[in-house]
């Protein structure tokens, strides 16, 4: 019997109030009142008499009431109801928990019970059915959710909302098919592009194999005298994908025969490690799911930053949550399994106020999501993923540019902590042995994420096929993570581990098989979410929250028993071998039999050519404003500079008790560029975390864009006292149109800067990830075709080890009377600056980094911080000195008197240029008056200047001709800094 349990609120419901505000903001002010019910549709063999109990179990008697089998009607009345639930096959976490609660209580009696959760929203006011539908569309994501709407009249005549049990129904009989490749080039190209055709001619989805790859595959199977099976082709497509093999970074590029990865990025790390000799900090680089450096005698700290751009464009919440929970598994799957200790994030969006939509099809059809919706969904996804997993998120950024409108960039990272020695062996080394069982642990496998999703809107009916988008389930992963990292690892129950990400088990098993040279999988043993999946689908599905482990046969029972006792499903799906082959069987029949060598190395290497891309911009011509108070305020309000407090406070940055320097600093709560954590509670050592990117600089010079990103990522860690030589970095290239020679030329420039500057600063790259095609092709509202490409974006993430975390310095001004210094040189480098952007110019003089000078300054500053001579340090970034000084004042709720004439500058004659130039390698610092002399001595030989002092009053700035140009109340500056995004 199927029945609805409807849980309603008896007290004012904060969720309803907030939702009402959101609906008003969506443009429906006529909605006057709103009530919410949480609905559980229970499909069960339980008797009517037991149903009341289900209501009790699923509600709170203090704040809620419930109604079973008869519809709840709000006392205040309503005009329309919108009910939102999941489409068939989409993970329904609430439904799962409700089912477990009911089963726990009733035991055997409730076996076979299924629960499906939905939320019903009762709207009252002058709203039409069309309005209600638009509200439903605005709140739900039609890729993963179904919407059901009824008017009051329909609701009454139907006696409530319908009882819907969205189950997946697949009717095909699973089997593997042979695919003939005895075809002409056009047909082979078609398969590579659109996938394998079934009997009805319907294609399975993109394989992303080019003709050259198809030829290699064709001749390989010709030499075997048999055609490939569908699962073999799919498996090759996964393993050879740009996503897995990074074909562009591996390709021969002009004179760089070994490609950009080996010839630039990895070369930087190798050079640094050789130069550093016994002081080498690298423990594991580029060979595993994360990279790691030494933390102390006992631990390593790992880091990895991923991108989840395409999924987030289509389903911002789902894309972001699976992104963050997915990169957590890069820690869990690092070495013998590292405990996730820090999450980091970075989002690139278009202006959330931009309401003009773009469309995937002509005639205003199939619109992309608005920038505001993408922004809020992504933020919420990382919120739920990180908070539910109990991993602190102390650091991140949000960057805006209109070119992220077609495709946002969503960076998510996780740092891990792992003992240097695990069960007497090096903790980063793992080796599956022939004979070891292959075990898949965690979630079950469904149709989610196959081919990175086909994303068509499905009819909202029962029995529609499972969608390609997936919802993350952080609690399933948390249970697995705890059971593996806190128990199985230290009981020595496995020999190797990796995560299931792109390509699912097809990639994880084949990757681990390299450790012992072979594997055999019995695919029917893989636990499925629902029956009827084709073998190739099971093999490449990207269903979330799964790890693959190699477990010695004698430990299999112990391992599975442990997992069971922790509520984690773990299943033997095959064994590792030394046959040199990857063999897959389905119900005893061999359906895949490929040489590992061919699978991993058979991919033809690309040869790419570049072409110089010239960029020249108009010389900016404008007079400087006479009102510098207003100018400073407009700069502080800019999207790329303003407060992101609303994100910082919704991400738990205190969990695990590791927090030292927080995302918001000072009484005035200013977002800091750098955070510090103490991941081992009984060690005084700290880890500093930061990042930098300058996409706009790439409009002038990609080389300098990359140089500035590295400089800033390092500078930010130096600002809290991280010694050089203890800093590692990660690269994330998010490029566009990477098949164009001009874009490839830019890529080459950026990679060259990575090599040059990383080697100078001795900051090895330890891990990275690229995403090469961040372009959107579609139409505007007039059906005019357009292409929106992201600006080539290089994110450099940095982390380093502090000897004593209690010496770390925050950025807020501390006391009136403290002298203020500017360290470093300010040049006429306003090209692509926030200031020029605010005037509508790009310019041509982008900041350049003098690494030798910077390095000298950084070492001196770290020494001075170590001697505890600094009261506050703020690295200078976007918005230049003016913004850095203002932020320092806002954070400390203090004023300052600053004389611009004293700032060390080169060739600057305008106050506005001096205030807002974004020259690199600079800091604004304050010291206690009694430390002045010692501080100046420590900095001797560097370019720096005493420019004023902290006061109790306004921020006052004197210009180059001795005139007062700024006299602003700090409260006004704070308002300017905080107002832009405050209401989100």
């Amino acid at each position: 019997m199927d029945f609805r349990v409807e849980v309603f609120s008896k007290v004012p419901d904060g969720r309803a109030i907030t939702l009402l505000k959101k609906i008003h903001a969506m443009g429906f002010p006529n909605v006057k009142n709103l009530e919410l019910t949480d609905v559980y549709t229970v499909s069960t063999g339980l008797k009517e008499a037991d149903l009341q109990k289900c209501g009790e179990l699923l509600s709170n008697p203090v704040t809620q009431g419930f109604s079973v089998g008869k519809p709840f009607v709000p006392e205040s009345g309503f005009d329309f109801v919108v009910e939102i639930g999941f489409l068939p096959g989409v993970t329904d976490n609430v439904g799962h928990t409700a089912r477990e609660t009911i089963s726990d209580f009733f035991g055997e009696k409730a076996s076979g019970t299924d629960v499906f959760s939905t939320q019903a929203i009762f709207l009252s006011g002058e709203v039409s059915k069309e309005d209600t539908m638009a509200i439903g569309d605005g709140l739900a994501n039609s890729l993963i959710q179904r919407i059901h709407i009824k008017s009051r009249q329909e609701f009454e005549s139907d006696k409530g909302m319908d009882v819907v049990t969205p189950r997946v129904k697949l009717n095909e009989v699973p089997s593997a098919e042979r695919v003939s490749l005895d075809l002409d080039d056009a047909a082979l190209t078609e398969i590579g592009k659109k996938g394998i055709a079934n009997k009805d001619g319907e294609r399975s989805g993109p394989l992303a194999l080019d003709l050259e790859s198809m030829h290699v595959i064709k001749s390989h199977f010709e030499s075997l005298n048999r055609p490939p099976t569908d699962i073999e082709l799919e498996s090759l497509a996964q393993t050879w994908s740009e996503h897995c093999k990074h074909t562009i970074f591996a390709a021969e590029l002009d004179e760089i025969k070994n490609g950009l990865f080996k010839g630039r990025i990895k070369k930087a790390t190798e050079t640094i490690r050789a130069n550093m000799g016994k002081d080498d900090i690298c423990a594991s680089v580029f060979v595993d799911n994360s990279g790691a450096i030494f933390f102390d005698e006992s631990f390593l700290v790992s880091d990895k930053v991923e991108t989840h751009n395409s999924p987030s464009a289509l389903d911002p919440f789902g894309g972001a949550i699976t992104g963050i929970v997915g990169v957590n598994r890069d820690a869990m799957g690092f070495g013998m399994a590292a405990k996730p200790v820090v999450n980091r994030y970075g989002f690139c969006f278009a202006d959330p106020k931009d309401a003009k939509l773009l469309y995937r099809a002509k005639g205003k059809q199939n619109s992309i999501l608005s920038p505001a919706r993408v922004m809020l969904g992504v933020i919420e996804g990382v919120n739920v993923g990180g908070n539910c997993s109990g991993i602190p998120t102390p650091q991140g950024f949000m960057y805006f540019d209109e070119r992220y409108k077609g495709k946002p960039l969503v960076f998510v990272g996780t740092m891990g902590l792992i003992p240097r020695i695990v069960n007497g062996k090096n903790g980063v080394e793992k080796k599956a042995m022939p004979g070891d069982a292959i075990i898949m642990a965690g979630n079950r496998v469904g149709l989610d994420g196959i081919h990175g999703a086909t994303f068509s809107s499905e009819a909202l009916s029962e029995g529609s096929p499972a969608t390609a988008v997936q919802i993350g389930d952080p609690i399933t992963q948390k249970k697995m993570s705890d059971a593996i990292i806190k128990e199985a690892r230290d009981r020595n129950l496995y020999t190797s581990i990796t995560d299931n990400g792109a390509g699912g088990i097809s990639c994880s098993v084949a990757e681990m098989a390299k450790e012992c040279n072979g594997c055999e999988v019995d695919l029917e043993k893989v636990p499925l979410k629902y029956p009827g999946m084709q073998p190739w689908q099971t093999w490449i599905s990207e269903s979330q929250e799964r790890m693959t482990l190699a477990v010695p046969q004698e430990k299999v029972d112990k391992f599975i028993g442990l997992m069971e006792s922790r509520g984690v499903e773990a299943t033997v799906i095959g064994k590792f071998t030394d046959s040199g082959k990857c063999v897959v069987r389905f119900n005893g029949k061999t359906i895949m039999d490929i040489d590992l060598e061919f699978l991993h190395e058979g991919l033809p290497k690309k040869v790419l050519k570049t072409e110089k891309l010239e960029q020249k911009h108009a010389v900016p011509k404008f007079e400087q404003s006479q009102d510098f108070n207003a100018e400073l305020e407009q700069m502080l309000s800019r999207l790329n500079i303003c407060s992101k407090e609303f994100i910082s406070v919704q991400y738990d940055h205190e969990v695990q008790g590791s927090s030292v320097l927080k995302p918001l600093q000072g009484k005035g709560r200013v977002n800091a560029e750098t955070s510090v954590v103490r991941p081992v509670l009984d060690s005084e050592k700290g880890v500093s975390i930061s990042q930098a990117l300058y996409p706009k600089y790439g409009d002038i010079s990609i080389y300098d864009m990359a140089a500035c990103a590295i400089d800033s990522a390092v500078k930010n860690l130096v600002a809290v006292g991280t010694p050089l030589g203890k800093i590692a970095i990660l690269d994330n290239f998010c490029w566009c149109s990477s098949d164009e020679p001009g874009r490839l030329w830019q890529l080459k420039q950026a990679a060259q800067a990575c090599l040059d500057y990383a080697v100078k600063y001795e900051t090895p790259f330890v891990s990275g990830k690229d995403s090469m095609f961040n372009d959107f092709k579609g139409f505007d509202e007039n059906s005019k075709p357009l292409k929106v490409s992201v600006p080539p974006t290089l994110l450099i993430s940095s982390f380093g080890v502090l000897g004593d975390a209690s010496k770390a310095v925050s950025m807020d001004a501390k006391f009136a009377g403290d002298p203020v210094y500017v360290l470093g040189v300010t040049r006429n480098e306003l090209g692509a600056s926030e200031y020029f952007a605010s005037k509508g110019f790009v310019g041509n003089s982008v900041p350049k980094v003098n690494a030798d000078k910077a390095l000298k300054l950084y070492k001196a500053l770290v020494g001075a911080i170590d001697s505890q001579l600094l009261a506050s340090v703020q690295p200078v970034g976007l918005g230049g000195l003016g913004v850095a000084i203002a932020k320092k004042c806002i954070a400390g709720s203090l004023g300052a008197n600053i004389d611009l004439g004293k700032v060390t500058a080169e060739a600057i004659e305008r106050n506005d240029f001096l205030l807002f130039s974004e020259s690199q390698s600079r800091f604004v610092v304050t010291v206690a008056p009694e430390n002045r002399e010692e501080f100046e001595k420590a900095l001797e030989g560097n370019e720096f200047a005493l420019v004023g002092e902290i006061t109790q009053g306004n921020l006052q700035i004197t210009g180059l001709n001795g005139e007062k140009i700024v006299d602003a109340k700090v409260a006004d500056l704070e308002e300017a800094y905080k107002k832009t995004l405050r209401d989100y």
Partner: protein
Amino acid sequence: MVKALVLTGYGINCDEETAFAFKKAGAEASIVHVNDLIKKPGQLKDFQIFAFPGGFCYGDDTGSGNALANKMRNMLWQDLMEFIDQEKLVIGICNGFQVIANLGLLPAIDGKYGERTVALAPNNSARYECRWVSLKGFSKKCVFTKGIEDIRMPVAHGEGKFTTSKDVLEKLVENDQLVFKYAKGKGLAGGEFPFNPNGSVLDIAGICNETGRILGMMPHPERHIFFTQQDDWTKQKETLKRKGEKLPEEGAGMKIFRNAVSHFK
């Protein structure tokens, strides 16, 4: 040695730092999975303190703390009652508070354990709030908070709005069961955001049972066991340094754990 059981499993995630705080206070702390406890409930007899740490058990599905409370009520009720009858201590922090409120271990007016009379509802902001708050200590009877008048520590929750009926509220005041209230400066928050971060009635941040031996609180004392965990420690450090004073190592939240441990000494 005083022994503390720190519960884990199903998404509890503050178990390690809570155990660390008890150890720092001189207890022997064991992290025990709820399923191991269900399997061998007898082991509860070895412990004097039962801690329900913060976290996201069952992802807050069907209401924060509800699903784990249902599980424990089904599987461990008698054992929990024995533990309480033996005059031992129970603390629920954040999600742990939500669990023991749903279990009816709090406020258990007139000794009616199991009755759910208070709830932690979604925050007024309908959003997760992670921020430092000031608290005022009120209860004379609560074992955990002896000697605590003013204290700061972080909150981090999406459902922390203390909600109950007027009758229960009156009883709580009458019985000295209100332990912590959110404060602003020298006074109370008066419902003002963000000082009262969730909209709790009467600014209530924590309550105890009638005996004072069971404490539930939304803020996290285990996140203020070091000086350097505070949101303003760098400013405090600069102040102390200029006065020539030494930096303390410990944070004020330790007092709650020390009170619990010394109760048995």
